[in-house]
C-alpha cells in the first residue's frame, strides 16, 4: 500500500483509515490502488484531516469508495473541511447514473435494420406518389412547367456530361471489339465482330454505361444540392412562400434528365460503335467501309430503339432517387455525405436491376 496517501491501522472493533497528502487528478490512480487493498470486515473510521489538497477527482474517488465500503460495513467519516463538504454536495447533486450504452443483440439489430428499410421504402413510395401527382397536375396546366430550370439542368446534367460519356463509351466499344476479335478470329468469323459490337452497344451497354455515369454524376449532385438547401432552411422558406418544392426542385430535374438521358444514350451508341470500329481495324484489319457495310446489314433499328426506350425510365429512377435522398438529409453536414452515397448506390443498383428486367421482358416478347 502506498502510505503516502492512505494508511490504516486495525483496532479491536474498527479500522482506522487515514487519508493523507494530495487527493488530486494526478494521484487518484495511486490512491485507488491503495483503496482496493483496504480490508472490509470491521467498521471503518475514515479520517480526512491529513489531506492537504484535493480536487473533484479526489472527491469523486472518495464518493465511489465510500459507497463500496458502505455496502459491506459501517463507515464513519471524520476531519473533512467545509470546502470538501461543499464540493461533495455539489458533485453528489449533479451525479447522474452512469450511462450504460444499450447493448443491441444481433437479432434486435436485424429487426431494426429491416424496419428501417421498410420505412425507407414506404417513404420512397410516398415520395413517388407526390411526384406523380405533381407530374399529373403539371400536365393539366403546362404553364406551370419551369422551362428555364429544365433547360439549365439539361445543360448541367446532359451537355456537360458529353465528354465523359463519350470517353467511357469509346473505351467500352474498343474493349468489346478487342475481346470479341480474339475469340472470333479462332473461327475465322472476323466480320461478326460488327454484329457483336453494334448489337451489344445499342441494346445493352450504351444505355447502361450512360445511366451509370449519370447516376454517379447527376444523381449525387441532385442529392447534395437539395440536401444543402434543406440544411440552410431554403426549402422551409420556399414552403412558407407557397412554392411547392416538387414543382420547383424535383420536376425540373426529373424532366431534364428524362430528356437528356436518351440523347446521351444516342451519343454513347455512336461513339461506342466508333470505338469498336477502331479496335476492329487495329486488331482484325477490318476497314471502316467493310465495317459500315456490315453495320447496315445487321443492325436493325429495333435494337437501337429498344436501347433508347430504357433511357427515360433510367432517367426517372436516377432523378427521383437523387431528389428523394436530398429531402431525407437532416440537419447536419455528415448526413449530406451519407445520403449522397446512398443515392448513388441505390440508383446504380436500380438501373442494373431494371436493365435485367427489360432484358427478360424483351427476350420473352421475342424482340
Amino acid at each position: 500500500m502506498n502510505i503516502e496517501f492512505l494508511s490504516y491501522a486495525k483496532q479491536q472493533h474498527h479500522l482506522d483509515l487515514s487519508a493523507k497528502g494530495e487527493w488530486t487528478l494526478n494521484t487518484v490512480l495511486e490512491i485507488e490502488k491503495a483503496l482496493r487493498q483496504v480490508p472490509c470486515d470491521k467498521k471503518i473510521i475514515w479520517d480526512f484531516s491529513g489531506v492537504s489538497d484535493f480536487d473533484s477527482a479526489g472527491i469523486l474517488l472518495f464518493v465511489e469508495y465510500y459507497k463500496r465500503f458502505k455496502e459491506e460495513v459501517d463507515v464513519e467519516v471524520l476531519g473533512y473541511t467545509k470546502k470538501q463538504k461543499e464540493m461533495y454536495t455539489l458533485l453528489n447533486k449533479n451525479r447522474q447514473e452512469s450511462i450504460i450504452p444499450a447493448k443491441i443483440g444481433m437479432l434486435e439489430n436485424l429487426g431494426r435494420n429491416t424496419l428501417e428499410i421498410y420505412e425507407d421504402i414506404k417513404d420512397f413510395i410516398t415520395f413517388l406518389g407526390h411526384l406523380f401527382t405533381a407530374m399529373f397536375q403539371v400536365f393539366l396546366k403546362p404553364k406551370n412547367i419551369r422551362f428555364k430550370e429544365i433547360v439549365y439542368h439539361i445543360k448541367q446534367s446532359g451537355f456537360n456530361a458529353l465528354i465523359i460519356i463519350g470517353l467511357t463509351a469509346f473505351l467500352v466499344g474498343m474493349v468489346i471489339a478487342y475481346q470479341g476479335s480474339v475469340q472470333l478470329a479462332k473461327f475465322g468469323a472476323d466480320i461478326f465482330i460488327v454484329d457483336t459490337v453494334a448489337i451489344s452497344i445499342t441494346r445493352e451497354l450504351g444505355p447502361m454505361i450512360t445511366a451509370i455515369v449519370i447516376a454517379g454524376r447527376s444523381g449525387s449532385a441532385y442529392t447534395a444540392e437539395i440536401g444543402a438547401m434543406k440544411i440552410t432552411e431554403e426549402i422551409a422558406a420556399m414552403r412558407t412562400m407557397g412554392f411547392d418544392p416538387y414543382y420547383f426542385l424535383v420536376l425540373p430535374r426529373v424532366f431534364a434528365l428524362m430528356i437528356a438521358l436518351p440523347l446521351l444514350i444516342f451519343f454513347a451508341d455512336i461513339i461506342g460503335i466508333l470505338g469498336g470500329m477502331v479496335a476492329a481495324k487495329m486488331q482484325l484489319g477490318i476497314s471502316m467501309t467493310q465495317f459500315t457495310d456490315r453495320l447496315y446489314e445487321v443492325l436493325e433499328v429495333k435494337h437501337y430503339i429498344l436501347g433508347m426506350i430504357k433511357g427515360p425510365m433510367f432517367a426517372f429512377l436516377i432523378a427521383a432517387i437523387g431528389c428523394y435522398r436530398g429531402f431525407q438529409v437532416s440537419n447536419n453536414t455528415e448526413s449530406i455525405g451519407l445520403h449522397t452515397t446512398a443515392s448513388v448506390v441505390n440508383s446504380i443498383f436500380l438501373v442494373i436491376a431494371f436493365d435485367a428486367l427489360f432484358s427478360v421482358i424483351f427476350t420473352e416478347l421475342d424482340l
Partner: protein
Amino acid sequence: MNPVIEIHDVVTRFGTRTIHNGVNLHINENEIYGILGESGSGKSVLMKEMIMLLEPSAGEVSVLGKSLTSISFKDAQALRSDWGVLFQFGALFSSLTVAENIEVQLKEYTDISTMMRANLVRSKLALVGLDPHVGALYPSELSGGMIKRAALARALAMEPKLLFLDEPTSGLDPIGARNFDALIVELRDLLGITVVMITHDLDSIFSIVDRMAVLADKRVVAEGSIENVLQSQHPFVEAFFKNEYTKERFSQKMNKGHHV
C-alpha cells in the same frame, strides 16, 4: 382587438416525445408578440405550426381567421402570401442574388412590370436599410447583419399582414440588434403589420415586445405584457427575469411591474 392568431389546446408529439401538451395563446392585431422559453421548449416548433411547416398532433391553430387543420390548398396558398417569414439564419436562396431573392414571389404571383418590380425591390432594400448595390450581391457575399436585413426585405416583399421572426437579433452585434429592434417597431407602425417573434434577447423583450408567451413544461406558463409575466412564480420565469443581471439592468421596468 381582433386576434390574428389563435392557438387552442395544441399537442405536439414526435414519436414518444411530447413537445407541447395543451398550448393556448392568442395574438392580437398590430402587436409585437414574443415567444420565449428555454431551449427545447418547442418555440420553433410552435412557430412552424403557425406557418404550416408542421402539423400539431392535436388541437387547433388558426391564422387570420382560418383554421389550419382543414384548410384547402387554395386558402393555404392565399394565406402564405399574407405572411412573411424571417428564418433564424436568413434562408436566402443561395443561387439567387439578393434582389432576385426579394422579387421571387413578386415574379411568381403577380403580373407587375419589370420596372415596377425593380422599384419595389429597391424600396424594400431601402426600408430595411440596405444600399441598392447590395441587391446585386449573392447571399454568400453578405455579412450576418446584412443577411438578416435582406431576409427581412424578402419577408416584406408581398406586403404581408403578418411577420414571423425567428430570433431576429441573434448573431447580431448589440448596436445592430437595437437598430433591428427599432426597424421592427418602425415597420409595425408604418405598415400596420402584426409581428410574431421568437427571442431570447432581453433588450427586445423589455423594449419592443407588447405581449409575450413563456413556454415551459410543455405549455404556456405565463402570457401577457411584461408586467403580467413578471407576476408568475414559475421557476423558468424566476430564473430568466429575476436574476441579478436582469434586475440590475432593467430595474426601472421591473419595478414598474411590481406596482401593477
